[in-house]
Each structure stands twice: as C-alpha cells, then as structure tokens.
C-alpha cells in the first residue's frame, strides 16, 4: 500500500508543481527520555547481541547515549538455561554472549532480562525462534524503470532479486538485510525489509522480493540476509516503516510503538525497542555477472 500512497504523493507534488517541502526547526517540548533496547538472538554463532541506549531530544542530531554497565542475560525458556551477556568494552553499550559460539536453537523461545546500574529490571516477553526457509536463488537485473542510473556517477543501476519457497504449514514472517560489499545500507529498506506469507502461503515466489539501493552497480557484491521473525516483531518493524513513510497530505495519526520489553512489576512502563529471535540464512551474488 505504501507504494500506492507514495506514487500518489509524488503525483500530487508533480501535478501542482508548486508543492514544496522544507526542513524547518520546530520547537518540540522535551519530554522524558527512556531505555532503548535493540536485542537479537540468532541461530548463527557470533550474531546474538543486545544494544542498550537512551532516547534523546527530537532535534538532537548526535548519536544517542549508550547505556553501560548493565547486567544482561538471555533465558532459554524450554530448558531454563541462562546465558549471561558481557559488554564488549566499557561504554560501548553493546552486550554479547559470554559463551563462545552461543546460538539460539530453532524451536526454542527466549526471554531477555536487563538490570540497569540503577537497579531497575526490564524483561522482555517470550520470543519464539522460528525456522527459516532457504533462499532458492539470488540474481540481479538491470533496472528498467525511471531511475535507471545513479544520479551522481551515471553508472547503470541494478536490482537484486531472490526466489524463495514459503513453507505451507505455518504462518511465516521474514525480515531482510541488504549488504553491498559487506556493508549494511543506511536506509530502512536495507535494514527492515519485511514481508509475511499471508498472500503467498506455501507458494514458490519468483522475482517478487527485490532489493534496490544506489550502491547496486555492476561488480558490487550484494548479499541478502533473511531472518525468520515472530508476528510481534513483524508488527513492530512494520510500525517503524509506517512511521517513516508517514508524511505529506495523506498522513495518518502517528502511532505509539510498543515493543515487547517492560519494567518488571509494571507492565505499563515499557522500554523502547524490541527483543527478537531469528533464524538466519544468507545468499550473495556479484551484480551483473550472471
């Protein structure tokens, strides 16, 4: 639906030829800031991590402050196994498992527990780690639509496609990350590409999932990482997408983003962010070399 809306907005802007956007400074009252959790448990060793930060003023462009010195652990629910996480280095706010090669097992479910230096304890809801279907093939095609060359360099641009076969017996939710030459793209579409199998459950999808950014040029190495995610994570990520594309004449009222992390003993007090459990698969291709 967003494509449709964006096209409309684009047309609206084009047709009037006088509509304009300008970046302004709006005085936004500063309200309370809070804990932000970006947590991920993955079935691939070395990828499980939890990043803790604090939210900041809206007009503040500096990176948000890290939360250092917290006690972080991930609990595997079925066997009640607790994995303690350690901060990679003091002040980084990034916490990784202490067990080398720690991996989340497909079919298990996980809970995150955080004790902040001030003693308050945050807990996540239990997240299931769903299996992932493999990427059947990955390939690139030269772009055929309006923006077919890079506007700075003039280099012809490509789009990268993957084919997958969705399993029939379950509801599946997927998230994608798109990397060029090993670097994760900066935009939402590179980091939070999401889809659900509602319209294609059990079918083989060919050419329906594509990736594009201005780095996808001949010879670049494009990599797609596909994550299984829970329905809750899907909803959370889709809200981020809706928020980011929500503007212009057809904006909807902003929605609060409620994640799955709460202050222990007070379900009304939530932390920002989400703790997700995923299985991951990846595939890569050299663009324009088929």
């Amino acid at each position: 639906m967003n494509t449709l809306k964006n096209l409309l907005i684009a047309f609206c802007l084009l047709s009037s030829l006088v509509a304009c956007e300008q970046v302004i400074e709006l005085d936004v009252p500063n309200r309370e800031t809070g804990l932000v959790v970006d947590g991920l448990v993955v079935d691939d060793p070395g990828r499980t991590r939890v990043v803790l930060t604090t939210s900041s003023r809206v007009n503040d462009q500096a990176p948000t402050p890290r939360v250092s010195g917290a006690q972080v652990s991930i609990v595997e629910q079925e066997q009640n196994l607790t994995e303690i996480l350690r901060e990679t280095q003091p002040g980084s706010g990034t916490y990784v498992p202490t067990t080398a090669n720690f991996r989340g097992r497909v079919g298990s479910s996980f809970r995150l527990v955080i004790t902040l230096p001030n003693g308050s304890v945050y807990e996540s809801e239990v997240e299931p780690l769903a299996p992932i279907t493999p990427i059947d093939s990955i390939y690139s095609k030269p772009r055929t639509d309006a923006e077919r060359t890079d506007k700075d360099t003039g280099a012809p641009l490509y789009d990268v496609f993957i084919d997958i076969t969705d399993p029939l017996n379950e509801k599946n939710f997927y998230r994608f990350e798109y990397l060029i030459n090993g670097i994760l793209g900066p935009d939402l579409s590179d980091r939070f590409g999401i889809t659900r199998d509602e319209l294609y459950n059990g079918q083989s999808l060919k050419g329906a999932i594509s990736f594009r950014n201005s780095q996808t040029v001949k010879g670049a190495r494009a990599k797609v990482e596909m994550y299984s995610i829970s329905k809750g994570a899907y909803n959370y990520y889709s809200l981020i997408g809706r928020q980011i594309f929500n503007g212009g004449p057809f904006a909807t009222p902003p929605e609060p983003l409620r994640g799955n992390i709460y202050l222990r003993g007070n379900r009304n007090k939530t932390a920002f962010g989400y703790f997700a459990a995923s299985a991951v698969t990846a595939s890569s291709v050299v663009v324009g070399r088929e």
Partner: protein
Amino acid sequence: MRNLFIVIITLLLTLVLLPAAFAQGKVTLSGNVKDAATGEDLIGASVYLQELATGQSTNVYGFYSITVPKGTYTLVISYIGYQAQRMKLTLNADQKLNIDVKADQKELETVEVIAEAADQHVKDVQMSTEKLDVQTIKKVPALLGEVDVVRSILMLPGVTTVGEGASGFNVRGGNIDQNLILLDEAPVFSSSHLFGLFSVFNADAVKDVKLIKGGIPAEYGGRLSSVLDIRQREGNSKQFSGRGGLGVVSSRLTLEVPVIKDKMSVLVSGRRSYADLFTRLSADPNIRNSVGYFYDLNAKMNYKFSDRSRMYASGYFGRDVLRFQGDFGLNWGNGTGTLRWNYLFSDRLFANFTAVYSDYGYNVEIPAGDNPIVWHSRIRLFQQKADFNFYTSDKHTVNFGVSNTYYTFAPARVEAKPPSQLRPVVLPDQYALEPAAYLSAESKIGDHLTVQYGLRYSFFGNYGPRGVYRYQEGVPTSSSTIIDTVQYGRGQAIGQYHGPEPRLAFNYTFNDRQSIKASYNRMRQYLHLISNTTSALPFDVWASSNNMIRPQLADQVALGYFRNFRDNTYGASAEVYYKGFQNQLDYKDGAELLLNRYLEADLLSGIGRAYGIEFQVKKNKGRLTGWASYTYSRTERKVVGNFPQESINNGEWYPANFDQPHRITAFLAYDLTPKLTLSANFTYQTGRPITLPNTRYEFNGISVIDFSERNNGRIPDYHRLDLSLEYTPKRRPDRRFYGSWNFSVFNAYGRRNPFSVYFRPVEGQNNKTETVQLSILGTVLPSVTYNFNF
C-alpha cells in the same frame, strides 16, 4: 416511548393541517418566477404582497403559491441581481401568474434594483444558511482561474478545511463525510478533483448553491453537519445559446438548446483539464508517458407537459484519471442521475416525484510487472422520493414526503492477472435500505413570530447475503478474537436502526431590520467514510452501519441575531452554536483501512462536541459588495474504549484534526468601472493540530520517534490573499457573442502555508531525524481565463 411518539405525531398533524381549514373563502395566486431572457426558473425569488405585508419565496422549481382574501393588491417580485417588478392585481378568483423578471445588467444603470431579497436573512425562519448565487461565486478569485463552488463556500463562516489540496470541507466541527452534497437532489459522494485542488461542480452548469449549517429542515436527512444543495441550470428555453471558457487548467463549453420553445430545453456541459496535453510533448519519456487529467460532463433536459406537469432529467459524470507510464493506472469519480416529475395537484399542492441514482468508485490497474492486478471499489445508491409542498394559507406552509434509498457497497475486489502469484482479494458486498418519512410546517404566528417545526423518521437496515464475523466478548476485538462466522441469507437483517429526527426553528422579527432566530436539529447518519488520513484519499471507502458500526448522531442548537442597516445596504449576523456528536468513528493504532476483511475490529467509536460563534457583515448593494467574517470555534473528540488500547489520549477530550479556533475570512468585489471589477479574498486561520514527538531513539541504525498524546501541538497559522480582475468589454448590441477576461492571482503574497509538519529520518542518514514542513501551494499562482457567452 411508542405512545409518546404517536401523541407527537397526532399533535404535529393537527398543528400542520388545522390552518388549512381557515383557508375557506380565500383565493390562491400561484405560478412560476422565471428569468425573462432564458426561461430558467428562479429559486428563492421573493413574491410579496405589499398591502398584507406577506409573501413567499419560490421553491426550488421556481413555484410559489399564496392564499389570501379577495382584494386588490400590489405585488412585488424581487430577486438578487434582477430588476424588481411591481404590479397591481385584483384577485377575485384563483389565479395563475407566471412572472418573468429581467437580469440586472450593468449597462442599465438607471434602473433601480430593489434588493428586497436582501432582507431575507432577517425575515427567513431559516438560520445558519448561506445562499450563493453563481454570479457571486464567479467573482471570488479562484485557484488558477477555476471557478469553484466548494472553494467559495470555504469563504463563509463555519466552513473550514484541513488545508489547500484537502478533499471536502468541514462544517461546524463536522467531518467531511457529514455533508449532504446534493446535485439536483442526487447525493454526491466525493466533491473533489485532484485530491481536493478543484471541485467537481462546473459553475457553468450550476444555477444555485445553498449551504445549510444548522436548523436543517426535515426534508433533508442522512448526514449530520450540513446540506450543500446545488441545482443545475435547465438551459435556455427561448433561444439557442452557450457559454464557455479557456483557462490555465481546463476548458469548458456549455450548450443550451430550446428543442421546443418554452416547452423543452436541453443543456449539455463539459469540462476537461489539459495539463496532460502539454506533458505529452515533453522530451522526458517518464513525463511524456504519464498522464493525469480530470473531466466533468453535465446534462439536463426538461419538458413541460402543461402548466401543471413538468419533467426533468439530469445527470453528471466525472472522472480523475492518472497513468504512470504503463506501470500503474488509476481513475476515480462520481456519476449521478436524477429523473423528476413536478405535478401541481392544485394551485396549493405542489408535488415532486424523484428517482435518483448515484455512485462513486475507483479502479486501480497495474497491468505489467510480476504481479499485475486490477482493483475496483464502488458505492452505489438508488433512491425514490416523493415531496409535497402544501401552501395552506399565506401564513402557513406544510411540507411532507417519503423516500427510500437502496445502497450497494462493494468495498474491494482485487483480481490478480497472470503471471501474478497473488491471491485475489474480495471483500463481500454489503446491502442496505434507508427508508424515511418527514412532515414539517412553517407558520407565521402574529406579526413577529415564524415557527418551522418538523419531524423526520428514518430507518436503516444492513442486509445479507454475506458472512458476518462474531468476536469474542470481554477482550479487545481483533482478527485473532473471531470465534465464529454467521452466514446471513439474502434480505436477512444484519443490523437495523431507526429513530426520530426532530427539527425546530424560530424567528422573532422585531421589525424589517432585526430579528432573533433559534433552532434545534437532530440528524442521523448511517454511512461512514473510512478514512484516517489528514486529507481524505480517493481510495477511502464508504461503509454501511451494521451490527458492529452504529449510526452517527448529532444534535445541534443554534441562536442568532440578524440585522440590516441603511435600507439593506448592510447585513450583519452573529450566531452561536453547540453540537454534540455520538458514534464518531476513530481508528485503532496501526489500523489497516484498505482491503481489510476485519475492518470493524480496527474501529473505535467516540463522541464529539463542537461549539463556536460566527460573526458576519455583508454589503449587499453599491459598487463595493462582499462580506467579512470572524469565527471562534472548537471541535473536540473523546474516545473511551473498554480497554486501554481502545482509548485515545487516555479517554480525555482532544482536539479533532480540523479544530482551527480562530478564522477570519473576507471577500470584497469592487466595480472600478462598468467594465472592470476588482475582487479580493483573504483567509486567516489557526494552524490545525498535529501530534508532536515525545522523544527520539535509534534502533538498528534507524532513527525512530516516540509519539505520545494525539494532536498535542499545532502547525503554524494559515493566511492567504487572492486577487482577481474581471474585464468585460462593452457588449455590442448587434452581436450575440460577448466575452470577458479574468486575471487572477492566488496566494498574492506567496506565503508558504504549511499543510502539514512531520518528522522523518534524513535520507541516506537514517539515524538522524529532520522536521519537514509541506506546503501544497506555496507560491504566487497567477492565471488568466477567457470566458464567453453567445
């Protein structure tokens, strides 16, 4: 309850019909008032008997009927913009009198124009009503020269919009779906072209525009907040004629053919925008292969069988069409058709039988690519009506009627074309019936008091065949709490509602110059426009009340003071109103409104309140005419659900999207010379509410904003000045063809008025947030239009 209702009906019937008994021994003068040149019926012309100081306004078909004692009278017929006529009449028996009045032309400056009609705003019982004749609408400086009915009513107090380029309009705190927009009695679902930049009404085909904001008479129903009653012209019944124009945005042509002189005339009118004709010449294939245009077609035919019997057929069809290369096509629009038969049962009983068709729909087509689809959505209505005006005496009129409306809602049908792997999505059609009956009377009691009282009673039923989801009780409704699907057969009722809608209005006239008016009305509305965007989209669908969606309800009380100065040169008014709304739809966070099978589970229901005071001063006569108004108003909503996630702002009152407390509008037209008219309009209003961010955070390298209370801030204020200059060269008497030039400047001082303010990640640096202000028409927009008549 039922007994009380019967008592009220009986009382009403007695009150209404009693005065007819006293009409014995009197005579009736009746007929039509017409434009002498074209034969068009004049709506709301004043027919006045000087000796009795009593009179009447012609109805929407130009008909009047006055029952008075035998005698000799001076009859004065007047209508704004026309030369008044005076005649002596001796009435001994019932008499038919058709009166032709001549339009006041600027060349005939010696003729006295009696604007008796101008004091109607003091004498009429109807308050909160604005009549705009097309001459005035055409003088209002228009966006890119496109004369626009909807934009000109935005200059009136009590009418607002969320921004330029927003569809529809808001009246006294009402949502845009609460306006009953009637084009020759056919309800029009969408009044906008190009997302709201222009309206669908081609002014060349329009005769008369009336906006009722309060004290809505009983013959109107089905919408809560206003009636915009637009009547199309019948066409010249005397001679072949036409009119048209060439503008920056579109061209227009209207032809009027008297097929049988004074008996049958036909009017056909068309308008089409033509920006796409120029984009086709573009060198850029993206622009060349994309088109966007809109068009309107209006047609009307009338045939006079006799003085007693007359038939009208009229229709409208309009579309907006967008195509982006071969990738994507989209079109939407309305169609209406009206068939009417006027019949005079007697000199005092005027009847009108109407059959109406109206639809609104959109089609989306993605013909190429991996997933080609076609997608349709539509709402359709058929209506039959019978309306009667019974002129019981010179002081008493009764109106009554019945109607029945049949609706078909086809919310969405998405078909996948090969090689698409997507499954088709079909949301089930819904069917509904809305019968209604009304009875109302207007009585003059003594010399000072006029009362209009009436009752409308409406029913609504939503019927099968279709499956209806049942949701678990005691938990928030969502698609995951469905416990069952109940199949309803054809004609089986899924949800039924009915209720009375009382209407009441008073006018106490102290003298010719001042009056006080008061009114109360209750309105019921069974349709809901499902839209949660700032500006409504062409894709927004209309939903029927059903087992889950209850009808909307509004009560309004209004009180006003009306006054004329200097022999009707100036008119002034002040009105206060309070309005309470029930069952106003709102939407859960994250609600998906399109293609949602479980739409009802995403809806919330709330209450609303709106109140305000409107001041207006008008100058009716002289070289300078126009008005200025100031409105203070508030519009608030409150949504308290059974669960915290079903409440908005913790169940507290919060300002609605179109809550714009202060509003100033002014429109002035000044005749510099008989050939040159300068006009200007000015609008100021408080910026509309938006939701401000609470705090910002980063999540996987993306800057995300946390919002808390809805509508807790405002965008900057809005103000704009438009100017236009109309040059009408002296008409050569030997030529039928004459033209005029219009030069206009929209947004004369080029203010970048904000439409909205929003927050988004910086492109390529999604870990930072920027605040963006969007202006839709942020520059000076000059235009020139040539209009012609023949």
